[in-house]
Structures are given as structure tokens and as C-alpha cells.
């Protein structure tokens, strides 16, 4: 048996694309929160005198600091939803059609994840566009390209996590009822909003255990040229975690019951 069926995998990806561009209302609403954060938090706080926030260098304004965090947030939310979309398909019966086809589940899972990744990164680029429009200074074109690497890793990590969560919970209601309980702490226990240096000591250790932290740090390092850890450090940690979560996610999907 082949490990990867290219055509079905591509087809799963294509379907995610078609669906993404079909649901324009969802697309527009997904920009609402990032936009509000940047406008009502980023711009006012960037008026504070420089150097007044520990952890942010004097040469940097808060909006520049915040923008990669908001980009990360968008990727986090959309990736987890993409991972969990397997539950939607189960709910609406489409999953059965997919599973009855003579295609191994790894190809299905990979195609679907690549689709989720693509749509998340498209959203990510739109956030970058909005940020630049609001006055964020992207450091360089090479930095912009490097940020794609971190976007891919963040997506892989949280799509994998989303699939694991979805398959363990088994239905949409269960997932929706706990999703914000999981998403929000991941988001807040990271340097997405505020630098670690401003947090109490005990939270710092939690932040260091959160994979999302390294994603944010990597994005920030590549986009606006400031990071807490060396970028290679962020890259390796996130790479390992994303591979592990994708493998676990595939395993969970493989074991998923059709019922």
C-alpha cells in the first residue's frame, strides 16, 4: 500500500481552498479581532514613552511589538479550527464519504492539514498587510520570507493539536464548549501581548513551556527584528513539537471511529 496518494491529498487541499473562498463572511469576521487589538490596544499603547515597558527595547514602539503577536493569534485560532474541522465533516456526514474511499487516512489528514495551513497563512499575510497599513515597520523582505517558516510551524503545531483534541472529544458540542478554555490560556501565557519581563516569575516558567511562545518569538524576530531567544532556538523547538503533534494527530485520526 502506498503511504501517500497524491491526487486524493491534493483534492482534500483543493476542497479546503474552495470552502475557504466560499465563506466570505467568516473570512471578514476573522479579521475583526486582530484589527480591534491593533487599533485599540496597539496604537494607544504605542504612545507611551519609549523604554517604559520592560522587555521592549527603547528603539521599538509597542505597535511593532504587538503586531507579530496578533499575527500569531490569528494563526493559532484558525489552525485549531482547521484541525477541528474534521468534526464538522463528521457532523455533516461528509467524513463517511471520505473514509469509504480507498485512500489511506494519512493522505487525507495531510491534505486537510496542508489546506488548513494554506488558508491560515493567507489570513496571516492579510494581517501583515493590515499591520503595515497601520504603520508597523517590517524589517526586511528576507525577514518576511523567514516569517513564512514560522507561520508553517505554528500552523502544523496547532492543526495537529486541534485534530488530537477533536478526535478525543468526538463531537462538535464538546469541542466548542472547551475550545476557548484551551485557546485563551495558550494565547495569554505567551509573549504575544506583553513581554515576559513584565510577568510574575511563576508565569514565566509556564510561558517557557508553551510552544506558542517560540512561534511568537520567531515571528517577531523575523518580522520586526527583535526576539527574546535566538531564532534557531525557536525554530528547532517548534519544529520538534510540530512534528510530534502532527504524528500524534495522524494517529488519532487513523483510530477515529465512523459511527
Amino acid at each position: 500500500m502506498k503511504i501517500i496518494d497524491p491526487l486524493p491529498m491534493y483534492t482534500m487541499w483543493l476542497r479546503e481552498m474552495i470552502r475557504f473562498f466560499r465563506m466570505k463572511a467568516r473570512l471578514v469576521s476573522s479579521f475583526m479581532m486582530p484589527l480591534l487589538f491593533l487599533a485599540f490596544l496597539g496604537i494607544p499603547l504605542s504612545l507611551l514613552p519609549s523604554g517604559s515597558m520592560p522587555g521592549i527595547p527603547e528603539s521599538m514602539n509597542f505597535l511593532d511589538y504587538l503586531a507579530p503577536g496578533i499575527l500569531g493569534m490569528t494563526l493559532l485560532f484558525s489552525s485549531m479550527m482547521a484541525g477541528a474541522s474534521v468534526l464538522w465533516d463528521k457532523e455533516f456526514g461528509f467524513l463517511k464519504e471520505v473514509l469509504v474511499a480507498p485512500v489511506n487516512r494519512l493522505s487525507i489528514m495531510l491534505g486537510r492539514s496542508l489546506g488548513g495551513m494554506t488558508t491560515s497563512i493567507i489570513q496571516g499575510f492579510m494581517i501583515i498587510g493590515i499591520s503595515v497599513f497601520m504603520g508597523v515597520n517590517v524589517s526586511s523582505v528576507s525577514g518576511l520570507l523567514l516569517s513564512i517558516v514560522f507561520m508553517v510551524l505554528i500552523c502544523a503545531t496547532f492543526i495537529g493539536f486541534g485534530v488530537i483534541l477533536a478526535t478525543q472529544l468526538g463531537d462538535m458540542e464538546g469541542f466548542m464548549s472547551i475550545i476557548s478554555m484551551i485557546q485563551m490560556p495558550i494565547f495569554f501565557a505567551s509573549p504575544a501581548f506583553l513581554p515576559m519581563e513584565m510577568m510574575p516569575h511563576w508565569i514565566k516558567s509556564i510561558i517557557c513551556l508553551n510552544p506558542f511562545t517560540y512561534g511568537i518569538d520567531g515571528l517577531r524576530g523575523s518580522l520586526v527584528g527583535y526576539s527574546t531567544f535566538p531564532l534557531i532556538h525557536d525554530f528547532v523547538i517548534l519544529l520538534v513539537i510540530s512534528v510530534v503533534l502532527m504524528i500524534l494527530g495522524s494517529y488519532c485520526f487513523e483510530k477515529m471511529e465512523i459511527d
Partner: protein
Amino acid sequence: MDIVSKEIEDIIEVNKLTKRFNGSLAVDDISFTVKKGEIFGLVGLNGAGKTTTILMLASLLNPDSGSATVCGYDILKEKDDVRRSIGLVFEEQAVDTYLTGKQNLDFTARMYNLPKKVRAKRVADVLNTVGLTDNANVRVKDYSGGMLRRLEIARGMLTYPNLLFLDEPTIGVDVQTRRYLWDYVKRVNKEMGMTVFLATSYIEEADYLCNRVAIMDKGRLVVTGTPEGLKASIGENIIFLKLSKGSEKNFIRLLQGMGYVKRIEERGDLLELSMKEREMGIPDIVRIARENRFIISSIKSHRPSLNDALLHYTGKKIEEE
């Protein structure tokens, strides 16, 4: 990719298949065979175990015990080969409502690795045969119930499988669409030699379509036979009557003594008689009653239907929709 077909007589062979859900038996030790080229019906009430049987045969659900081969492939060990050889129309909706009808079929064609050249033509062909060409580019969420079922059936046979499973294919569609779908199933069976495995709680459907039916009740197969055979097995003519004078017990005894009657059952205050011969009918019964001073207050007769057979073999009656 070519559909690999093995030369086999029995396209489905089921041997002591059993499946439990939370301890209760959904499918209880069933064995049967389906011959190549026939339309085989699995008939029973909701919850009889029909869908579970289909899911197991389609290799989507593992049985707890027993074995089966589908198109010559083992449902446990050769899942991909089984899946490649069959088409399956699920009882519930299984299409993506955000895609158009055509996109849904194209999706399926790609999932089965149909080559590009075949794909477009095949999709157009099946859309045409189920009469959805005009709505091919409409999103499925705007389809009516009947259009949805037609699309599902088109999807099930897109790969021109050797064996097509239909799980309640005409549930929730109007009379006209139902008749259309039935004739369509008959046609593909005849013209393409496609074997059809139909699960239905709709007795008329099984009667109209099937060469052979198996009646399923509470996870068990009760009886298997041709629709005609099953009807004949409960008598050639069925008479319901009600007495206004004389005891029913005595009347039953009288009739039993005469040897015309195959079977007598009391249903409330009605007597149900199954006559051995087609010619024996109301006039004969009325004559016998009069000669023996029984008075019949109402009487009616009808040819046995598959419904009567089901009633007889399961002790229940499937409510007609």
C-alpha cells in the same frame, strides 16, 4: 486505475457476522450470500441492524466476530480492495453542502484516483443520468431533498463499481422521484450488470426492485427468499373476517378440519386465514359459514404482500410511510 475484479459467483459471502454496541447485539450471527448480478434486499425495521451490516461489509466498521468477503476480498484484511470495488450510498447525507453538485462528484472521482480524461466525462454522464445536469453548478445546500438523494446515488455509482450498496436510498423523497430512482437502479443493474445490495424499511421498494430479500429483525436474519416465494410461503390468498354469530374457536376448528386453510391467526377480533389455493376465496368461506350457522359480519381478501410476509416472520408490521 482499473477496478480489479475477481471472477466469483457470490459477490458477497457473509459468515456468522456479529457486532455489539455497548454490550447489546446490533448484528447477531448472520450468514448469507449475494449472487453476482442480482438486486438483493435487506429488509427490516429501523434498528434491525441493516446499516451496521452495510458498514461492516463496506469495511468501515470491524465486526466483533465472523467473517465476510466482498467482491472476493476479505473485509478485514483487504479493506482497500473492498473499498475500491464498491459504491456506497449512505442513509444520511454525505456530501459537502458548500460545494456544488459537480464539485462533489469531481471530489469523489479524484479520491478514487480516476484519471483526468475519464473524470470529466464520467461526472457529466452520471449527472445526466440522474437528471442533475442543469443544477450541476448549484451549491448543494440549495438542493431539494430529492435532488440531494439523486446526487448521493450518482456519487455512489460514479466509479461504476461491481457492487453498489444502497442504504435507504429513497427515504424522504416524493413518489415521483422514488419511482425515477427505482427505475434507475433497475436499469444500471440490467445494463451494467451492477450487483445492488439494498437495505430498506420500505417494503414496497424491496418488492419492486429485489430478486431476493432477506428479512432482518433485531440483528438476526429471519428468512431469505424471492419476494414471490416469501409471499407464497404464507399462503396464496389471505382472508380477514369477523364473526357476528358463533364462536371463533369453533369456526377455526371447522376450517382446520377442511384442509383448505394453511394458517389461521387471530388478530384482535379479526381472523386472518391464509388459503392454500388461489381459487379458494370469499364465496367458499361464506358458504361454509352459512352451512354451519355462523354469521360473518365483515370479510375481505387480498393477495399476500411482502408486508404480510414480514408481519408473519417478524410478528410486526412495518408502517408504510
